[in-house]
């Protein structure tokens, strides 16, 4: 296998090497790739869409269609993971474990029995060896809101600085993952349940597609945000800018939900009982 791999890889490398000498030099400003379509974007993005971040402008407007499918890809990854891994089972007959936070005693309570969740004295834990880890919990408590805020900032300021719906969504999702990591899966579910995540992911992409459809219904082509101008009481250029923001929000929502859902499914192997 190794030799075969080596041969294949060398052949492939040879093929790739073969074409490389004819490449324009790296970083050459006059390479053909930089002369045909890209200049248009650089020179017209601000005029067309009032978005200084050209990448965002291209991403969400000129090539917004790609991005819509990119969101759909992420969405389908989330659904795929759910579809593949999710184990649907009746409430298991397993005993539940509670730790009494004042004494450190772990209680094992059989099916049917329940201790008050959410009280400060008892804490439900996944398994006996789950450590009491105050430091991580406090840290997560302290930084999660800021991370979330930062995520929203990234989404909102995709026009002016790097970032946008996707990055913001991932960071927001990461915040929730952080919460789930430092506490446990059950608590994370209380913040964002599985169904809510699914709903949010679908809703996020629907915001995107719906915006496109709205443009179509208002008489433009699909995703032609300038058609939103009348609805938003602005001119066509600002309409594009706002349209970009709307779809970025959709992307962010979808990506956030999918990332969380992926984490839920991967870390618990679809059982949703106990995370990482």
């Amino acid at each position, binding site marked *: 296998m190794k030799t075969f791999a080596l041969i294949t890889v060398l052949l492939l490398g040879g093929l790739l090497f073969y074409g490389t000498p004819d490449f324009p030099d790296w970083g050459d400003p006059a390479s053909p790739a930089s002369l045909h379509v890209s200049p248009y974007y650089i020179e017209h993005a601000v005029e067309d869409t009032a978005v200084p971040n050209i990448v965002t402008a291209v991403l969400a407007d000129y090539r917004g269609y790609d991005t819509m499918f990119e969101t759909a890809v992420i969405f389908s990854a989330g659904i795929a993971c759910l579809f593949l891994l999710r184990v649907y089972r009746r409430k298991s007959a397993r005993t539940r474990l509670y730790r*009494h*936070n*004042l*004494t*450190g*005693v772990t*209680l*094992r*309570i*059989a099916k*049917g*029995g*329940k*201790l*008050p969740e*959410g*009280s400060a*004295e*008892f804490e439900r834990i996944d398994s006996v060896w789950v*450590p*009491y880890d*105050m*430091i991580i919990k*406090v*840290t*997560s*408590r*302290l930084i*999660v*809101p*800021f991370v*979330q*805020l*930062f995520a*929203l*900032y990234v989404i*909102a*300021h995709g026009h*002016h600085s790097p970032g946008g719906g996707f990055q913001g969504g991932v960071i927001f999702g990461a915040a929730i993952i952080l*919460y789930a990591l430092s506490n446990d899966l059950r608590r994370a579910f209380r*913040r964002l349940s599985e169904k809510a995540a699914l709903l949010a992911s679908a809703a996020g992409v629907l915001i995107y597609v719906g915006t496109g459809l709205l443009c179509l219904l208002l008489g433009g082509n699909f995703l032609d945000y300038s058609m939103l101008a009348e609805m938003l009481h602005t001119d066509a250029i600002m309409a594009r800018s706002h349209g970009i923001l709307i779809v970025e929000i959709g992307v962010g929502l979808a990506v956030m939900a999918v990332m969380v859902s992926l984490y839920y499914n991967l870390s618990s192997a679809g059982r949703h009982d106990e995370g990482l």
Partner: protein
Amino acid sequence: MTVNDAPANQSRNRIPKAQPPSTKPKRSPVPYILTFVVCMLTWLVLSGKFDLFHLSLGVVSCAIVSFASGDMLFATKNPKRLPGQWLRFATYVPWLLYQIFRANMHVMRLVFHPRMMDLINPQMIKFNSRLTSEMARFVYANSITLTPGTITVYVSLYGGYTVHAIDDASAEGLPGEMEARVAAIFRE
């Protein structure tokens, strides 16, 4: 729902007494509002745009965050003590920075010392702290980690600290002055 619902065969695990929280404690709006304010300040720093549009975006975002995780940032039950704590914490920080600087110098000396192996003496030490509140313990634990040659390994439920120290000098300094200062912040 009380623990008495637990089946009889689990009785050996029965705990002596549990106060049934009859109703959920009413959530105070103060933490949410505080979160909102803090978030808004952060937003202003992050955003750097002060036109109406971006500000309204900021308000919306902060509202979302404070709605979603308003109960995280200020978990304390007694919000009135917060301003004092913050002020005292602010005075603690420069001292901490100084300690950190010292710690770093110390570690750096070890790192570049040719006979490093002789100087260091890694050890685990355990001690109990009198700090009770979670936040105080947290601040103390992280301070320990940041300062001379020590790392908090574990904080037990009862405030027992397990600390890894790189050499004897670091180990001897515990719990030391720092605990007192942290206790002072949180008035414990």
